């Protein structure tokens, strides 16, 4: 296992290197950072000077190397927009994003899994059909649209829930801020996590349903029933577990996506997280944030996929052969 992890770590390095390289080729196409950093009346000479100082005139490979050497020392530079070290900015934004991701993943799993099982077992039931259709309509509308509709309903019309922000946050430890401990913080989580989790919920639900339909027709489920096991055991321990490989694959990917790319939801709800910052960075061509962010995301995905691969081994003993 340690060897496996070490190999993955090495691969992660390579992945991050490639990501950084790609990112650097790409930044040329995102726009000109200088325009976003100075007022429109700033003279051309000053723009040129700034560009020179930022090293933007250096050839791409030079910029890339500089970035990599610094990144290797955990120095990701200073944000063009905020004029603060990128790492500090990240540290401030990460709690918000993780809490939102956690809440929406929880929503997706807690609703998606039982509904998926139910729909898989009761293929013809009206409730499952209704649920499947409604969730589909939910995902066929764009995220921003859903977000705005929810805000319109729950904030403007009913005035139950806040329309933006994290509510009141409490400092926990030296740098973590949490919204879980205040009422307004919890209220503020509801709408964005539903908006964000809707797609994953639908996906997980339909995936489980589809897999359940197949698994419940296998011989071992038949035999489990013949042994008189209660439905709970048959459905969850035997049937569900056998559907899990694709489900955890997708859950892992989606979890990564909601942590890394909750951009639209965070924008709609002005959620002060990483996604919002990333979108702003793209809009404002904030290269240091973008590159550090992409590196972080790359690492996140390698890590998540590593965990998923480990989970495969836990779930399915047949996959353990030949693996250290």
């Amino acid at each position: 296992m340690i060897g496996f992890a070490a190999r993955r770590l090495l691969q992660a390095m390579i992945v991050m290197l490639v990501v950084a390289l790609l990112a650097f080729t790409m930044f040329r196409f995102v726009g000109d950072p200088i325009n976003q950093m100075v007022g429109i009346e700033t003279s051309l000479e000053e723009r040129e000077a700034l560009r020179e100082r930022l090293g933007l005139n250096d050839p791409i490979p030079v910029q890339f190397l500089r970035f990599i050497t610094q990144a290797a020392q955990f120095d990701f530079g200073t944000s063009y927009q905020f004029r603060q070290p990128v790492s500090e900015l990240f540290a401030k934004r990460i709690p918000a994003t993780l809490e939102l991701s956690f809440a929406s993943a929880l929503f997706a799993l807690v609703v998606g899994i039982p509904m998926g099982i139910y729909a898989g077992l009761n293929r013809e039931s009206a409730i499952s059909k209704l649920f499947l259709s409604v969730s589909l309509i939910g995902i066929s509308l764009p995220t921003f649209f859903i977000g705005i509709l929810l805000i319109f309903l729950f904030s403007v019309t009913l005035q139950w829930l806040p329309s933006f922000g994290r509510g009141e946050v409490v400092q926990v430890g030296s740098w973590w801020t949490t919204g879980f401990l205040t009422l307004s913080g919890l209220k503020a989580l509801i709408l964005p996590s539903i908006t964000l989790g809707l797609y994953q919920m639908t996906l997980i639900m339909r995936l489980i349903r589809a897999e359940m339909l197949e698994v419940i027709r296998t011989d071992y489920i038949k035999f489990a029933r013949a042994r008189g096991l209660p439905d709970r055991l048959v459905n969850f321990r035997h049937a569900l577990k056998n559907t899990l490989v694709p489900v955890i694959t997708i859950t892992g990917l989606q979890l990564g996506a909601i942590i890394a790319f909750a951009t639209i939801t965070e924008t709609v709800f002005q959620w002060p997280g990483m996604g919002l910052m990333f979108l702003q960075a793209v809009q404002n061509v904030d290269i240091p944030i973008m590159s550090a962010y992409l590196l972080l995301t790359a690492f996140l995905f390698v890590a998540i996929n590593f965990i998923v691969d480990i989970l495969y081994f836990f779930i399915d003993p047949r996959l353990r052969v030949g693996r250290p």
Partner: protein
Amino acid sequence: ETLKFAFQGALNALDPYSLNETFTLSSLGNTYEGLTRRGADLSIEPALAESWEVLEPTRWRFHLRKGVKFHNGSDFTAEDVAFSVDRVRSEGSDLTTRVPADAKVEVVDDYTVDFVLASPNPILHYEWDTFYIMDKEWTTENDAVKVTSASDTTPNYAALHANGTGPFKISSHEAGVKTVYEKNDGWWDEAKHNLDTVEFTPIGSDATRVAALLSGELDMVYPIPVQDIKRINDNAGTVALTGPELRTIFLGMDQMRDELLYSDVKGKNPMKDARVRKAFYQAIDIEAIKKKVMRDLSTPSAIMISPFLFSKAGEFERYPYDTEAAKALLAEAGYPDGFSIGMDCPNDRYVNDEAICQAVAAMLARINVKVDLNAQPKAKYFAKILASGGYDTSFYLLGWTPGSLDSWNVLSNLMNCRDESGAGSPFNNGGFCDEKIDSLTKEILVENDPEKRDGMIAEAFKISHDNAYYIPLHQQGLAWGVADNVDLVQRADNQFKFRFVTKN
């Protein structure tokens, strides 16, 4: 009282010289002050300078206000002014033009400062309402003399903390998330506001911003989309404040290249022909744009500056909307069947920018000009059409507010000749060149007689109008959403000053 408000953009760095951008300067103007300030009607008022006089055309004397303290308690003196002048002109500052590079500062005594200029400049202090004075000691002590620049690798104290003389202190600031202001009890002026704290949150999404106002979570939001004005007015407890803004929206055309980019006309540039430009001009139904796109929240304009900023603006009139005349002009110019042209347009910069472009494209289609519209976010848009992108455009939409609120700024930035690299008028993206306008611009700069000066400005604008070098569209409107219990002043420069606010 607490005022909670939101703006579409964020307040990033707190260093008053690091970004020459309206919202940043507007926000910091509640904390910092300049030697002058502008009142509700944008008239120049004394602020940290009690009065000033022009001793000779090249020597200005400012008498500073006594007894003013910075938020940290240190006194405001002439040294601070001299320090600020140096700092604002130093490398990394984005406001270097506030004080001419060749001007010298002479400290006469603790409360008197002289500015010695190389050449006369009647509008020297026009932009000083946003040239904020910093505390020399504080800045030096905190090692923040160098202007916070984007190329810095360590954070600058001044970028994260503020120490001004203004009516509000910044008590906490998280860039892009939240900024909290607190009342400055030791402010030198009599407070007309009744606020204790002000909370600012950036909200990027228009709909969310409006929703937050409608739901009563916020007291004030700006800007609001024009289409939501009615909704906000209909809502009990909120009202939309609208008014004219100073920004002029206009269309520019490539008149420099010998062959138009993104066009099916090869080997020549139709836009060099004034008839073609006039045809474009006359094909645009500005009233329809005003009514349908802007929902009446715009003022069609015949010149490139807001009528508020130029006394003779009333002398100009737009060419009438006339499709037939436009077609005739095109035919005359040799394009009876029209041609195709690529158009660049931002989609997140000005009020309904993309919708305006689409409407223009549809209108030009009626005179057989096929427009390929390329609407992009501002980062990509500006990177393409400005000097850094090699002025890669044939037809574009742009907006301009003269920072000094004076026409010379417009002429020198937009209407003088330029070369390929942008030397000259850097924002004359179309690159037209009219010697007469250039020479007028030079004269205007040094002319101290207002009457004569205005005459020359009018002449320059007339040349532009006659040749249709630009197609001015309108001054866009301001729209702020305010809760009924809040009273405030909406200034035409779109700056929001807390000192005008009362909440009950």
